[in-house]
């Protein structure tokens, strides 16, 4: 299509090969330059025309020509009509098969992505919509279910006990699993050895452990064999067992990508291995580590099955994890949803929305930590640094001038 150069005619062997300049064909109309930024006009027309046609066809077909009804069928028929019209249109505009398959492939890929994101949106919207009757009562967040029967209206009782239970169980699990998990990752990366290979193999294998087995393990060992009561601690331990391999493996991956040159530089400066780990490796890996850990915590907060086995349902706030059952958000959702009582189901959806929010917050924290610090100051930080500068100047005007070197700032 866009070939400009005429291939040089191969000359006889005896003659020395000479470079020939391509001769410009003066008669040839220069091909219009392709706009690379966006689709050409007729393609854009085709895209939108196909969409319009698809909606029109679907409107006629669904419920009028075929005995199928409902928005779902409308979307399916519209999507199919869209791709067919698109394919035929592309064939009409540009007769190459590659062009047709390109458009069809683009349609397939985009539709797949749209379906996935629509599903995500439907989950969030559905949960919040169904839970809204419960969510817009303040008592839902500030009260527990003490003295509230399942059929009481939504302006009574709340899920504070489940929120606190979840936080406590998660706190226990994090307090055990984070140091152990990160420690294991450090061991596998920084200490090494044959034993580390064994640990790595086992840890990687254990990431395949279904969550229910973690719960069953704690139930059989901790509760049945050792005779401890079902409690928040047991649930926390079950979550720990589930989270530990995940954290260890995720941290391992993060630590592995810390450049070896940094370590070598640190050793060359005479640092010990410990101080290399503490001052070089971990700080370098910190954003990635934070993301991995918080995502593991988000996974832990949503665990239902292990908690169901190792703890139980309490209707009141219970802050002591060592004795007595402690309910958690997912467990509360599960029991309330199963009860079949409409009000309890609304509470379950409200709780699910809270759980989603919790996960979202954890997630946002993870994203914030993972993001490389921007050079631009956020408004809040600008304000803060201005304030600090003001304080600094006020201080320097005082009796004792404080050295405010960049180095000292850095040490903060």
């Amino acid at each position, binding site marked *: 299509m866009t070939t400009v150069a005429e291939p040089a005619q191969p000359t006889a062997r005896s003659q020395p090969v000479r470079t020939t300049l391509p001769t410009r064909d003066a008669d040839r109309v220069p091909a219009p330059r392709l706009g690379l930024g966006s689709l050409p006009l007729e393609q854009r027309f085709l895209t939108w025309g196909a969409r319009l046609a698809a909606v029109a066809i679907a409107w006629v077909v669904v419920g009028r020509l*075929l005995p199928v009804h409902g928005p779902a069928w409308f979307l399916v028929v519209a999507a199919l009509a869209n791709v067919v019209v698109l394919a035929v249109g592309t064939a009409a505009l540009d007769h190459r098969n590659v062009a047709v398959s390109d458009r069809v492939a683009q349609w397939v890929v985009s539709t797949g992505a749209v379906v996935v994101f629509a599903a995500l949106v439907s989950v969030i919207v559905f949960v919040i919509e169904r839970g809204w009757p419960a969510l817009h009562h303040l008592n839902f967040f500030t009260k527990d279910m003490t003295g509230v029967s399942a059929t009481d209206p939504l302006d009574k009782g709340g899920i504070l006990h489940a929120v606190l239970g979840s936080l406590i169980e998660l706190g226990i699990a994090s307090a055990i699993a984070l140091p152990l998990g990160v420690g294991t990752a450090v061991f596998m990366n920084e200490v090494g050895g044959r034993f580390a290979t064994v640990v790595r193999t086992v840890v990687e294998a254990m990431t395949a452990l279904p969550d229910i087995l973690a719960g069953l393990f704690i139930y059989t060992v901790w509760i049945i064999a050792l005779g401890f009561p079902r409690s928040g601690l047991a649930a926390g331990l079950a979550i720990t067992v589930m989270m530990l391999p995940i954290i260890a493996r995720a941290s391992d991956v993060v630590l592995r990508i810390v450049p070896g040159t940094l370590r070598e530089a640190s050793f060359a400066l005479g640092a010990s291995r410990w101080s290399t780990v503490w001052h070089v490796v971990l700080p370098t890996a910190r954003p990635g580590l934070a993301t991995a850990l918080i995502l593991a915590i988000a996974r832990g907060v949503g665990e239902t099955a292990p908690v169901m086995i190792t703890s139980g349902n309490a209707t*009141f706030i219970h802050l002591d994890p060592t004795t007595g059952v402690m309910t958690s958000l997912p467990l509360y959702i599960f029991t309330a949803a199963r009860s079949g009582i409409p009000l309890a189901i609304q509470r379950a959806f409200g709780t699910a929305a809270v759980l989603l929010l919790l996960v979202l917050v954890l997630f946002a924290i993870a994203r914030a930590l993972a993001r490389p610090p921007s050079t631009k100051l956020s408004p809040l930080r600008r304000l803060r640094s201005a304030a600090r500068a003001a304080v600094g100047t006020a201080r320097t005007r005082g009796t004792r001038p404080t050295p405010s070197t960049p180095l000292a700032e*850095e040490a903060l």
Partner: protein
Amino acid sequence: MNRRHLTRRASALLRVLVVVLLSLAVSSRLVGPASAEYAEIEGSGSTWAYTIVQQWIADVSAAGMQVTFNNNGSSQGRKDFANSVTDFGDSDIPYQGVDPVTHQSDSSQRPYAYLPVVAGGTAFTYHLTVAGKLVNNLRLSGETIAKIFTNQITNWNDPQITKENGGHALPSLPITPVVRSDGSGATAQFTLWLDHEYPSIWRPYNGASGLTSLYPRKGRQIAASGDDGVMNTVDSAAGNGTIGYAEYSYPLNAHYPVVYVENKAGYYVQPTQYNVAVALTKARINMQKTLPNGQPNIDYLTQELDDVYTFNDPRSYPVSSYSYMIIPTSSTDQRMNSAAKRQTLADFLSYALCTGQSKAGPYGYSPLPLNLVQAAFGQVEDLGPAATPSPVPGVNIKNPSDNLASCDNPTFVKGNLAANHLAQIAPMPLPCQKATAQPCGDDQTPPGTPAGNGAKVSTKSTGSTTTPATPTGTAPTGAPPPTAAPDPATGAVATTATAAAGATPATANAIEVSAQRSGDNRLFGAVAVAELVAIVLLPGGYVAWLRRRRGGAS
């Protein structure tokens, strides 16, 4: 730079977290009732009794008692108690001893006592719509129920069902029995009744005699976990054609109808508190506290229901039974290690046996009669003064068994401990509940039915297919039975749902018309769609063909 930012961000976060946690802790201190003399107790077990136990727990929390209860089924309730996982259990049947087949032991080494806490009827709830309207006056005899749950009657239009419903055929729809998937007391009570009353139907199906806690699911049957699971399956949108068994409180809460079950007197009755109370006056309770050899009888206060099933009072609901609490009796019990825990359990049970019983009726249960309450309090004393081997000091039983003056149980009759007030005032069934009469109409609520019963509900009504008809002459109740027009889509006609207890039944039998009259429609539809698509696409296709031909030529 990087580190500093992160540190600051982290420290800010930490500060926020600390503040949030502190405020939560403070608020929880304000919310959480802190009572010195009570300690938290845990229980688990029967889903059959769960509705009322949950209500009691909610009620006693005002007094500062913290009680938890997991409704994980009677079998697990017994096991949890035996494993010392819980402080008390709730089971609909006693420990079963060693199983002859598996040699698995269902028993408890932990010293325990049974005490009946609530009575109730195992109800058969169903979901059957006719012309968009929920049938709510289905009548079945015990034999029919037995055959339904053993897959011998498999269609709602079975002649036997038709006969029992005054000759009105239900639509042709397969029956889907919903049974329990977990070990349950409701299954045990139900199969005990089947085994006792219809051994020739039940035993070949089960392959063994006697009750079972795990229903042997076969064929079309659906299994669900817990009474709530059964209820959810039945009342789900796709539950048309299902029938399941659950405690009466579940269909009551779900506003779903229950089957009128035929009793020995030839009346079809529902498990209202009155009918259950009447039936259970025939329950023989094992009152032998010690065995002849001087050992305490562990079956003390367990029930013998043979006479309940065959009681020929017109008001008697045959599948009635009690649910038991299982409490620890040893003074050295591992979990009952403080007087506060014992006191909490004792006071919780005191509440349940007295004031709590007044809640039984509205919630779909039946209150306990005085003699059982009295005997139960005798067991409660095992928690403190009567614990073995030595009494535990500091536990104060509010209602000793010889002084129940302060116990406001609705069944008590002043001066006659053996009498059951409820059974005395229990209303007689309506004439339309008699086996020989036409089934009761929509607006006829059997006496004693709690408010909100499924009998009053027609939530599934589409409205368009039912039109009120003129009262049919001499109907004894004078209620206008709505007749149903044939549904245009299905051709089915509302039948039993609208039958009046009159001489002239206002309804016709169900007509079977295939819904698929659109076979030709479909063909023409497909052709039309093909034409439409061709009209839209042909020009484009033609252009593409032309261009391709030209492109090939050039």
